[in-house]
């Protein structure tokens, strides 16, 4: 999950080593409304995938982002 972790690390400004499946807006103070949109656009661009609004809003933590990208055929 290096590629996805690198995106989260860069956007949220946290070390890759601190990124676990449980990482969420509740545990990462930088995971705010604006950064959530930047995360979505970066993930969509780098994995060449497209999320629906409902899919994107359903992401509650990093682990769910991994699962969603994989469900779209992305190799995280």
């Amino acid at each position, binding site marked *: 999950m290096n590629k996805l972790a690198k995106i989260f690390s860069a956007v949220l400004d946290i070390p890759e080593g601190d990124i676990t499946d449980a990482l969420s807006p509740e545990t990462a103070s930088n995971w705010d*409304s*604006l950064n959530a*949109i930047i995360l*979505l*656009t970066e993930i969509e661009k780098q994995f060449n995938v497209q999320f629906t*609004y409902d899919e*994107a809003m359903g992401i509650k933590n990093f682990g769910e982002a991994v699962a969603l990208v994989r469900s779209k055929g992305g190799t995280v």
Partner: protein
Amino acid sequence: MTAKTFAEVSVGQRAEFETSIDEALVDAFVALSGDTNPLHTDEAYAAGTAFGRRLPHGMIGGALFSRFVGVHLPGRYSLYLSQSLLFKKPLPLDTAIIVSGEIVQKIESARAIRMTTTITDKSSGATLIDGEAMVQLLQ
């Protein structure tokens, strides 16, 4: 008030409104912000600067962008997420200015749009302030 939903906005859509800033508005902004810097409040001090007279606060331009997003485009359903500002030239007093914006990106997965936002001097066309806004739509 415009009330565009996310389905109704598209890249390339733009809007604008004309307004001007008078001394009463500057005084109201002083009361609102507490920014009593003499460049904005003291005519004698301002006359001794390169500008020659007191200037409106640049952040009044920020307030005008708020009006643009909240009322004009996209309007009613907007949730303002971010706004960058570049103060290129001072806002003039008692002069017609145009506040405008254009949608440059539509982000389906977040129901958000990215817009360029600009304030220009109506008569000269000079850009006074520009920036970029990120706005989510609640419907």
